[in-house]
């Protein structure tokens, strides 16, 4: 089973990296970019029997830092 874990900064958490990229897009002349937030995509290949609870636990314990990040679990092709 292929899993994508989408990790993103929580709303309200400053994203200096996103801000710098936003600035760079402005510099390239792309007008109208209102905000840039940078996250992380983690692709997992797991046994089909892997439970949702285990996937959640992986995110909570390691893949995301829930102090600053949200995560979304996507099962690819389902």
């Amino acid at each position, binding site marked *: 089973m292929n899993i994508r874990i989408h990790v993103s900064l929580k709303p309200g*958490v*400053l994203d*200096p*990296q996103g801000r*710098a990229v936003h600035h760079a897009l402005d510099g390239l002349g792309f007008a109208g970019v209102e905000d840039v937030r940078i996250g992380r995509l983690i692709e997992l290949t797991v046994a089909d029997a892997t439970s949702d609870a285990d996937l959640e636990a992986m995110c909570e*314990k*390691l*893949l995301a*830092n829930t*102090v*600053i990040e949200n995560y979304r679990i996507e099962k690819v092709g389902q």
Partner: protein
Amino acid sequence: MSFRAAVVTFPGSNCDRDMAVAVESISGQQPIRVWHGDSALPDRLDFIALPGGFSYGDYLRSGAMAANSPIMREVAAAAGRGVPVLGVCNGFQVLTEAGLLPGALMRNASQHFICRTVDLTVANTDSLFTRGFEAGQRLRIPVAHHDGNYFADEATLDRLEGDGRVALRYVENCNGSRRDIAGVLNASGNVLGMMPHPERAVDAAHGGTDGRALFENVLKALAHA
């Protein structure tokens, strides 16, 4: 006085030797060096230091991998028993990732790596690390980090301040940290995480010795225990 200290080394730690030298110069006793993969800490420890560096190459998030290394289970257990634990820079990041301290250390607001000596004020004078200080006392201690921007939600920050758990603040906020926080304590006051490097300010040749007092405070606290 016997002072049994341990300095933990993770793959990518680079201030572990400095930390060991600093502890030895102040306590007169060589700390025991511990490896991240060790499954046990030496017994009867008086002090554990998690040094600065880039453990596991900062993979995933600074401190995230080290927080899950075998030795950290033992460090957490020792902290729970009241053993003083100091995490400096990457060590602070490891302590937050391990859940031993609240909050998180994010990328500096400026996006720049900062390496210079900064002014701090002592915000807590009631922990074993800070009991020798006067409230508001200034310290000059170097910082060297890319991810030192302390973040916690407003409720957590209010609670930390209300409980006197903010140990150190930047006089001039260098990295975007919420409420100028440079160092925080756990609820029992025996775990301190701080971004500035006290081990880099223990010898006149370093350009300053303001870091010594922090280690001396721990020694004094143990002597009185």
